[in-house]
């Protein structure tokens, strides 16, 4: 190989200008900033994904009370019999006070007489009297405890009522012995109302308003059997534009219920701002 004079390379490596690339990077960062500022990626306006609670016990049915005997009258006699049996069971070992025949003479005397008997002339000895007395004390004590429990239950019920519609599901009696298994559950209206309220965004202004005024709107919603909103109408607007608008938005957001309904339903739902604010 021979060697010849070499050409001179003044700028041999023509590397790209760093300043230019710095400018490109700066512009790219600026674009990303702008994209976030104008919410191009929809991070701020993107609706929150709905949270579905699968309540296997409180299945939404059209009329949860249907097919069930009225619980109140049914309960009272039961309670009465319980009390009676308690009273009768306490003094002696009486098991079936209604059964007649077999030992007629002994039982009536034991069951019925304790109260009237103690005073007078009958020859009940001291021990028996003490027994009866202690049994009576026990009964009184139980009654007092029962009363205390009833009072607590009432208090609890009041608290639930004040907590709003969220507790509807918890209040529904389930597991009735005479039920067929499909009637117990939360009412559809309450279910739909709760679902819409989940999707309802309350502004600070509305929360403030809830303390001042009782704002309420009534709407008719028609849902298909698949749980899709077919149409809606606000029958009685609240008069508060913001509240009505937010209600409309919430209804539109709740177009699809998390589970299907028994059939096409037209529901009249009342939305109360105070209730909403209390929940939020």
């Amino acid at each position, binding site marked *: *190989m021979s060697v010849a*004079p070499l050409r001179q390379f003044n700028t041999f490596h023509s590397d790209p200008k760093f300043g230019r690339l710095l400018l490109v990077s700066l512009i*790219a*960062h600026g674009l990303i900033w702008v994209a976030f500022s104008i919410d191009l990626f929809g991070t701020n306006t993107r609706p929150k994904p709905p949270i579905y609670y699968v309540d296997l016990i409180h299945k939404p049915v059209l009329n949860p009370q249907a097919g069930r005997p009225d619980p109140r009258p049914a309960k009272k006699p039961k309670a009465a019999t319980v009390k009676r049996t308690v009273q009768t069971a306490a003094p002696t070992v009486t098991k079936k006070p209604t059964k007649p025949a077999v030992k007629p003479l002994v039982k009536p005397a034991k069951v019925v007489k304790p109260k009237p008997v103690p005073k007078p002339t009958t020859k009940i000895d001291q021990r028996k009297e003490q027994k009866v007395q202690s049994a009576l004390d026990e009964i009184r004590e139980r009654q007092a405890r029962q009363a205390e429990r009833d009072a607590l239950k009432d208090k609890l019920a009041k608290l639930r009522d004040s907590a709003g519609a969220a507790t509807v599901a918890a209040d529904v009696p389930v597991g009735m012995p005479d039920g067929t298994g499909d009637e117990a559950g939360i009412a559809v209206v309450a279910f739909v109302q709760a679902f819409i309220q989940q999707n309802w965004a309350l502004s600070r202004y509305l929360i403030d308003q809830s303390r001042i005024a009782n704002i309420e709107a009534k709407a008719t919603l028609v849902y298909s059997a698949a749980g899709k909103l077919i149409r809606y109408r606000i029958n009685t607007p609240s008069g508060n534009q913001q509240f009505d608008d937010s209600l409309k938005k919430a209804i539109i957001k709740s177009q699809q219920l998390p589970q299907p309904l028994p059939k096409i339903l037209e529901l009249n739902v009342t939305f109360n701002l105070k209730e909403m604010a209390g929940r939020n």
Partner: protein
Amino acid sequence: MELVLNAGPVVKLVLLILVYFSVVSWAIIFYKQLVIHRAIRDSERFLDFFWSKKRFDAIGQGLDDYRHSPLTVLFREVYSELAQNRRQADGQEADTLVADLGEQERVARVLRRSTTSEGHRLEKYLSFLATTGSAAPFIGLFGTVWGIMDAFHDIGTTGNASLAVVAPGISEALVATAIGLVAAIPAVIGYNHFINKINVLTGEMDNFCQEMLNIVQRMSQGR
């Protein structure tokens, strides 16, 4: 965006530093991508060209087409050294053998120097990527810790520890860590990527040096 705008002054300063790191890192990534991509492409082409020619002067004439390759720099330096040596040798015919032995050593030195300088050129700015990759998360973390301190201070002054009071401060503070990671992750990835490519190029340069030394030795012996 609200999170950034509502942040405290220290967190904002931290964010500004991180944005600076990110901007410069990306500029370096673009720059190195161009430089190294061109270097690899031109090196491959230059090696084909080099082995296809049998004369140094013919190769020397075509170096312009492969100007981004570090191998062309090595060749150019060796070629210059040889040309200078020849010019000196024309006046000292009596010491040809001594001059030839010295020539090989000089070429080896030239190659070492050129390899080092080309290595430096290829690794230029990469230290910034390494710094960004290691420091940015810590800077972000500092902003977050500061923001959380502020949030706790607010809790103390308001006397309210509800989520509504605590959460905004903490989310604003966490933005700093997020931005720190956003700056650091591309920097680390870029650094590893470019170091790998530079290692490949350095290996090629070493191989080329050995080949050049062999050629120079053969030239000396064949003279």
